[in-house]
């Protein structure tokens, strides 16, 4: 053998094969050191010849057997003779893998070793220089148009979270009566925004802070995202929205289903706004039907009579719905619901907020109730 290995190659082989007792295949050697595969074959077999006492090698025999091309892996030098006998004509025999005699590697382990040196598609030129067959030029998709896979994005944007949310929302809905109540309030709310700007703005202000505070109470929302998504979903790959254009183009959702979905979502949204309202009511100043506000509303109505959107009937209903909801909310506000890791809904009563609520709004609710019944 005329081939002589360079200093660095010998060093690499010595440290990997003898010191670390790791297997080296011609391919891993070629990829590790960036040399031609055939050079690697030669270097490896030279190294093996010199260290036969410590090393064992497997070989690849290629050739023909009757009417087929046969590629045979021979376990070691002893089996080589038998394996060669299977061939009608041998093209070549070259070394495949060398490893220490001390350790026995199964084929699977050697294959696994090969997988540790995956191809890097950006270095194709080097591989071609090192014996890879040059393929036709790839019409590459521009990097910029390629969607960047962001597995984290999926957990954040994809709706998996919505599945558990729906379960969390269910119990609140289960009362049956509430669902009808919800839609009515929603309608009333919309109207409010449109017409009674003064009134709503005040509510919004008071709403904001408590909502932020309250959000800490809804910890389950974030926990779910952290723990559940990776557990249940293994994302093989994630293509950005443009990548699925083809598929999405095909599915033209009918407006009907879209609106249905919208309704569904609204339902859930509302469930939450309901909760938020509770917390608002807990801590905020009395906003519900104060006599002042009713008066104010009535005044505004008088002023706004020209506005076609608001009819007096609707506003009057709005007034009545507000107080109607209150007793129910009072019950709810002491109960917190969390979805634990197993997906069960844990309902617990919180002592502190309720106490707080009593301290601040105890009297207020009483008056509200009174005013409610009083009106009727």
């Amino acid at each position, binding site marked *: 053998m005329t081939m002589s290995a360079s200093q660095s190659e010998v060093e690499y082989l010595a440290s990997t094969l003898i010191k670390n007792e790791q297997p080296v295949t011609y391919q891993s050697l070629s990829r590790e050191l960036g040399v031609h595969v055939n050079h690697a074959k030669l270097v490896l077999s030279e190294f093996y010849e010199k260290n036969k006492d410590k090393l064992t090698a497997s070989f690849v025999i290629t050739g023909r057997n009757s009417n087929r091309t046969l590629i045979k892996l021979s376990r070691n030098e002893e089996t080589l003779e038998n394996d060669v006998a299977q061939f009608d004509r041998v093209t*070549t025999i070259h070394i495949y893998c060398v490893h220490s005699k001390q350790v026995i590697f199964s084929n699977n382990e050697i294959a696994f070793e090969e997988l540790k040196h995956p191809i890097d598609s950006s270095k194709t030129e080097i591989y071609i220089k090192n014996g890879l*067959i040059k393929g*036709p030029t790839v019409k590459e998709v521009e990097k910029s148009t390629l969607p960047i896979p962001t597995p984290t994005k999926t957990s954040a944007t994809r709706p998996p979270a919505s599945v558990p949310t729906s379960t969390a929302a269910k119990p609140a809905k289960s009362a049956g009566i509430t669902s009808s109540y919800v839609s009515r309030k929603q309608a009333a709310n919309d109207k409010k925004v449109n017409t009674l700007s003064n009134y709503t703005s005040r509510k919004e202000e008071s709403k904001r802070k408590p909502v932020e505070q309250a959000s800490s109470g809804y910890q389950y929302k974030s926990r779910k995202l952290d723990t559940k998504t990776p557990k249940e979903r293994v994302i*093989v790959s*994630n293509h950005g929205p443009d990548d699925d254009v083809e598929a999405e183009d095909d599915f033209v959702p009918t407006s009907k289903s879209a609106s249905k979905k919208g309704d569904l979502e609204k339902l859930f949204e509302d469930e939450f706004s309901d909760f938020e309202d509770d917390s608002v009511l807990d801590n905020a100043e009395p906003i519900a039907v104060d006599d002042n506000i009713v008066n104010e509303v009535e005044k505004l109505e008088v002023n706004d009579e020209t506005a076609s959107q608001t009819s007096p009937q609707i506003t009057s209903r709005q007034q009545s719905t507000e107080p109607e909801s209150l007793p129910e909310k009072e019950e709810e506000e002491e109960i917190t619901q969390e979805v634990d890791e197993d997906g069960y809904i844990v309902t617990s009563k919180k002592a502190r907020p309720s106490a707080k609520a009593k301290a601040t709004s105890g009297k207020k609710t009483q008056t509200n109730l009174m005013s409610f019944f009083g009106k009727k």
Partner: protein
Amino acid sequence: MVEFTDYFNREVTPSTEYTRTSFKDSSDYPKQEEFIISAKDRKYDRQYFSMYQYRFKNLKERIIGNAIQKWGDGTKRVNGQTIVKQDKILDITSGKLCWVVGTVFCDLKDKLNIFQDVEKGIDDVLPLVPDSYVGDDENSMTTMLEDESGRAILHNEEFLSKNILVTGCIVGVLGIEISAGIFEIMDIVYPEASPQKPLTLKASEGKGKVAIVSGLNLEEGVDADLKLELLKQYVTGSLGSSEDSKTASSVCRLIIAGDSVKPIKEMSDRSNRDFVTTNNYGSKNISQYNPESLVKFDEFLREILVSLPVSVMPGNNDMGEICLPQQPLHKSLFHSNARYLNGEYLERLTNPYWFNFGELRVLGTSGQNVHDILKYLSKNTTAAPELILKIMESHIKWQNFIPTAPDTLYCYPFDNSDPFTLVDETPHVYFVGNQQQYASEVYTYASTTTGNSGSVRLVSVPRFSETGELVLLDLDTLETEVVQISL
């Protein structure tokens, strides 16, 4: 005798560089889209009747032409009896020699039966497909011929065992009604073969070869398959001598014909198949696929794609739908190869698929059509390569390569069309994937009416995971060759 050590490192020279034969066909070929069903057209509210009707209408005329040529209508006499043509099965008169065209229907004991499922209340569960449709009593098997007017039981065991007939083939039969409803079959006529595209084979053209492999069955876990590693190294040209690299460089495309990943083991053994109910959202509905093996397949492709264009067809075990024609695998499964997806470099194909290499037409399936027909045959038959070739030959004879869909193979309800019928073209090469053994032969047919003859190269592609074999098809000569990787 040459000492084997003489072969050591022969022709292993670190200087040669090879450029792969590339074969690019720019001509437009509409059949490549034949099996694509766009998502918005996937309507399942139709009846299968229309598909059968189309098949019958299309093939009937072609059979009548052949039958007139062979048997005539009142013009030929056999044993003192005149052969007459009957238009309908109902018109057959007892004791008179006649021929008639109809659709074959096989009544087998263990065939899946939706009515039974409904009766038992298990029609919402996807039934386990049996290994054979023939029941324990092989005599209970009846082959019938039917048309819109009626049915006749075909009788002649010897004849039927020699000629494969399965549900859905359209044939013309000659015989005599021996007793009410029982037709003694004597001879058979198949439809006139569709024309083949004119093809001139020039050995010097240098189109190269295509490698066809099927049943890679990549698995999850650390048990990497060394055969797959050697396959990668072989097709990319690093394994073996310069001669081997040269052969490998003549391969212009790798076709993966189905079953690239292995379904989760426990699933197939599981007697409790509750998870395949129509309740797709229950906790019992567990995926049949391990995402790890899908990732592995993706990585496997990446190693090959740096050097060799690949076409992937879905198969029975792949993550595609159950219905034929199977639509291309979703591009998300080829995540790490996204950069190859837009061109022809990595093609996601349907199963079946019509390939087009210049004038050469290659029809390929992932093997379900052959496996299904094997289930119609007696339990004792082994899937010998000769039998596989005989089935494939029958496909060409019947001019329909998936006749058992929609009867025993799940199939999309096509409206007044049947893409599995060779309506306007017969391929030059026809391969099926995922078979037990490699086999190949040339089937030559002669058309009786037009006098045209044609030949189809039939290739049975074995499962790589079991045999370590891939098939090289020479696009110039249509010769096939096996490369076996053995550990």
